[in-house]
């Protein structure tokens, strides 16, 4: 789960990291009042969306008067960044900057551990730094049983600053960042940039935290940070039904059990000259209700021209899926052709259920995909 910058700043501030004050505004007038309340000569108005590259998209602007803050906020609010509508802005004092660094911690797949990354070349996209000047990135692997040890934090901080007072402040920030990372159940926590002000203070200007979805069950306070309005509504509906749905650009609606098979099904649609309309995994031990919701989501997409079921029964029982399909057609009109492939657990029972309502099921994945692609292109069924 992604959380907004202002929420990530709150988590860092709660961990004791120096974060400048900031006010969230959902209207332009609120943005003006926010600047008045902050009582500073200059502010930055920042779009709050779950997307990178906000600055380049025109979603981050400097204002020198409250009126200008209001005007800029009215431009930014409602703007679309990478397809997502901006509904909130964060108003923060413009900070004078002596130097910018990057500090972050991620879960690393290769070492199977949290890994800290720091770079004195902060403020810009860290992936770009990694690609062009990898020698400017310094890493330390953390043994998660012990956490980031003080000497590790100091060694990393010495990579960023020469001044010992700044090194100590940065080391302290790193340890607090690690604590915030663990407390949030994050898979990534970064401060970019971590700046030194002309007075020599080390301050976190921008923060990003991505939370591991598997942590949310035991962290209700973090789950409460979810901004449903900032997410795709079909994906929200799917998540609430315990399905995984991702909208794509094609016209063959796919409904599959298992993520790997779902991806392979999308790929096979492409192989036969079609384009998948979505990724949809109904998961294991699926009950008929889940299948009904899945069909509801797929049929709600106007670009879908044919619907393909690809079910390999293991934990998932084919008869459950068949019952779900039949139940869905009774609850609402499925006005696009359905191609159903079922094999595995309780396949015979499923075939009987479908035949009972005049539907047929295929057992071969290739045959089913080929037929769905043909139907989506307006052809007749084989």
């Amino acid at each position, binding site marked *: 789960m992604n959380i907004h910058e202002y929420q990530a700043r709150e988590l860092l501030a709660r961990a004791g990291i120096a974060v400048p004050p900031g006010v969230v505004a959902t209207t332009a007038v609120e943005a003006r009042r926010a600047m008045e309340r902050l009582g500073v000569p200059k502010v930055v108005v920042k779009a709050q969306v779950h997307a990178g590259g906000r600055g380049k998209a025109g979603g981050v602007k400097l204002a020198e008067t409250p009126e200008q803050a209001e005007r800029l906020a009215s431009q930014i609010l409602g703007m679309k960044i990478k397809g997502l509508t901006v509904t909130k802005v964060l108003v923060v004092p413009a900070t004078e900057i002596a130097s910018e660094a990057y500090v972050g911690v991620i879960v690393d797949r290769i070492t199977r551990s949290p890994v800290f990354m720091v770079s004195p070349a902060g403020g810009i996209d860290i992936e770009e730094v990694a690609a062009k000047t990898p020698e400017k990135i310094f890493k330390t692997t953390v043994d998660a049983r012990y956490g980031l040890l003080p000497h590790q934090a100091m060694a990393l901080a010495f990579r960023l600053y020469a001044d010992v007072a700044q090194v100590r402040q940065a080391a302290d920030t790193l340890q607090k960042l690690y604590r915030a990372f663990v407390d949030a159940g994050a898979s990534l926590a970064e401060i970019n940039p971590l700046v030194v002000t002309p007075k020599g203070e080390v301050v976190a200007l921008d923060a990003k935290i991505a939370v591991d979805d598997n942590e949310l069950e035991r962290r209700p306070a973090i789950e409460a940070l979810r901004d449903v309005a900032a997410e795709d509504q079909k994906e929200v509906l799917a998540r609430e039904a315990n399905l995984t749905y991702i909208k*794509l650009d094609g016209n063959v609606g796919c409904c599959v059990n298992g993520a*790997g098979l779902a991806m392979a099904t999308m790929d096979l649609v492409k192989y036969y000259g079609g384009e*998948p309309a979505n990724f949809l995994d109904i998961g294991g031990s699926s009950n008929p209700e889940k299948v009904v919701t899945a069909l509801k989501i797929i049929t709600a997409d106007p670009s879908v021209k044919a619907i393909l079921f690809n079910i390999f029964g293991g934990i998932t029982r084919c008869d459950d899926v068949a019952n779900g399909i039949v139940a869905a057609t009774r609850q609402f009109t499925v006005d696009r052709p359905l191609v159903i492939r079922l094999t595995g657990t309780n396949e015979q029972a499923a075939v009987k259920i479908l035949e009972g309502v005049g539907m047929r099921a295929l057992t071969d994945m290739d045959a089913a995909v080929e037929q769905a692609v043909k139907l989506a292109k307006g052809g007749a069924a084989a």
Partner: protein
Amino acid sequence: MSIFVDQSTRLVVQGITGRDGSFHTKQMMSYGTPVVAGVTPGKGGQRFEEKVPIFNTVAEAVAATGANTSVIYVPARFAADAVFEAADAGVKLVVCISEGVPVLDMTRVWPFLVERGVRLIGPNCPGIITPGVARVGIIPGNICAPGPVGVVSRSGTLTYEVVYQLTRAGIGQTTCVGIGGDPIIGTNFIDCLTAFQADPATKAVVMIGEIGGTDEQQAAEFVHAKMTKPVVGFIAGQTAPPGRRMGHAGAIISGSSGTAAEKIAAFERSGIAVMKRPADVVPLVKAKL
């Protein structure tokens, strides 16, 4: 012959009385798997299906039955502790089926296992099956058959699809391992490839990867440098958009890394025969046997 699971396997089921645990234990038993013990705290002293003794702790189960392999079906929030418990009790192979285990939990489990020389398969995996010998996990036994091909995969149902196509074409398997779709897993592709290379009964290996991470690229280098047996490979997610997690927590293209194209290119460079679709497994494997 086989890898990881064979005639010497003595299995303890953690969470044997739970919904998934009891269902799959019956299936594992009917497949002939030597299930010697079960663990559910508070139900020690009872028997599962009037046969398998249930213990309160894994340590008791190991002491009483000599269990050397564990399979975990407990809810995700208890899974990490179940792995710790199995390792602490001296079990040398732990198969964690549980889905939704927090990744930070796994970062604490991993160094603990390394220090004790314990092999973990999973979490969030379908487990492992040595056809005709033992099924540890949830891979349906009826789609497998004994034979010369080793199968290793990050996926569940996609593995079933590929194994089913092999079996239908009369090509059996030594062992099929589902290593799991999470960002942090125990046994990886290279571990399985190493074991298949050393297993005299395995004549060819099928490797099924997906987008996300660099495990497949490293495995490809390993195949090129260390393997003499033929390898056939598949990568799922060629049509996946970047930045979106495709169901599996580990299946995500971040930036330009972890794409299917990059992985397929690594396979081709390393002499791995690449399947364009699951059905290609049959002709490609036949050509290598």
